[in-house]
């Protein structure tokens, strides 16, 4: 039976009173990720907003074991946890590596790529707020074209983001998926599915950031939904090479009612200086990706 808000377990692994901003999409996503894993997890996390969510010594706000690790090493740390557990014959626990886009697309990509190539048996989740938000919104490899950031303060970013999920899919690992904090049930199901798969698994979770992107924090869910409704985020999964659209993206594909990207961009202060040319370029990029997904999806 599919999970919904009514039948989903009430057990929480996130305790109230953590340090995240009001309306933090990461906090919401992490809450559901841990629920989907039923807390049977060892988490490893690099320097990131999630480190702050976890709190400051000697108190933590989560009730799962966690190993903090330096910025570049998330996937290597996860590999070490898996190796240690295997050496000691301990089973039944998922190793969860969870890093931001900075720790995944940029400084952490080497270790992640290698772990995927080695087919190390853990779940890697990238929560993507499209910038180095923990340090004040500097641009990352995931920041979109035209976005203002701490290090692209006047001209905005001159290059579009890299497609990390496609990069991870190219490693031939058994499961890659995209997800979005605004669709917690879809995220929950994907994590539950990934938990049961052996080998390297990658989920890319879209987590809008109110202070970083400049929108009111009560709009977090709305912004996340707009991203899907305009095709900026496409909800899909690739299981052993088979591509499926999921959740709202599947519905939008069937109804063919993708909205113009501009409606998503205009809600955010970080795009206040974006040019028409850049909007067109982004729309073109979205259109190309969307068409490719429509062609590949087996469930349309």
């Amino acid at each position, binding site marked *: 039976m599919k999970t919904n*808000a009514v039948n989903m377990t009430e057990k929480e692994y996130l305790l*109230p*009173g953590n340090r995240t901003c009001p309306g933090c999409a990461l906090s919401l996503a992490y809450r559901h990720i841990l629920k989907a894993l039923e807390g049977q997890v060892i988490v490893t996390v690099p320097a990131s907003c999630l480190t702050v969510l976890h709190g400051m010594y*000697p108190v933590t706000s989560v009730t799962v074991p966690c190993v903090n690790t330096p910025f570049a090493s998330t996937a290597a740390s996860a590999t070490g946890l898996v190796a240690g557990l295997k050496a000691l014959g301990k089973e039944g626990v998922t190793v969860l590596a969870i890093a931001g886009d900075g720790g995944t697309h940029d400084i952490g990509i080497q270790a992640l790529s290698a772990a995927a190539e080695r087919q190390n048996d853990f779940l890697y989740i990238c929560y993507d707020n499209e910038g180095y938000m923990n340090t004040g919104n500097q641009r990352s490899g995931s920041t979109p074209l035209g976005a203002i950031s701490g290090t692209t303060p006047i001209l905005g970013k001159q290059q579009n983001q890299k497609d990390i999920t496609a990069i991870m899919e190219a490693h031939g690992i058994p499961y890659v998926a995209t997800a979005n904090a605004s669709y917690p049930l879809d995220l929950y199901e994907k994590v539950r599915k990934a938990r049961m798969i052996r080998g390297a698994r990658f989920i890319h979770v879209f987590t809008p950031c109110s202070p970083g992107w400049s929108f009111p*924090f009560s709009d977090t869910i709305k912004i996340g939904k707009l991203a899907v409704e305009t095709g900026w985020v496409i909800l899909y999964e690739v299981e052993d090479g088979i591509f499926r659209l999921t959740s709202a993206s599947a519905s939008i594909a069937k109804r063919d009612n993708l909205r113009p990207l501009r409606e998503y961009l205009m809600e955010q202060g970080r795009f206040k200086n974006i040019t028409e040319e850049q909007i067109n370029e982004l729309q073109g990029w979205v259109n190309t990706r969307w068409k490719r997904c429509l062609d590949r999806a087996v469930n349309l």
Partner: protein
Amino acid sequence: MGTRNCQHICGESSPAVGEAGKTGEWRDSFPVIDQEECLPVRQNKPTCFLCWLYCPDAVISKTIPIQINMEYCKGCGICAQVCPAHAITMVNEEEFCPNETD
């Protein structure tokens, strides 16, 4: 008095509520639920609970009636936004006077 009573040799943290303090003190508006509009209350059965699902801080309970932990609610307003029955309103803290009686 020093920290020798602390047995840790490395940074070992234990879980507790309120790691960042009473985060309810952060907010400038707080959610008020209209029990006549709230779907689980109206239908008197477990249904909807989207506010519970979408709360980033897990301060909403899946009970009838819904309860919100005001010590830790940051006042983000997501619950008000996602409620399909528009049963939740964000009220400015300044307007709320706890000592006033009806």
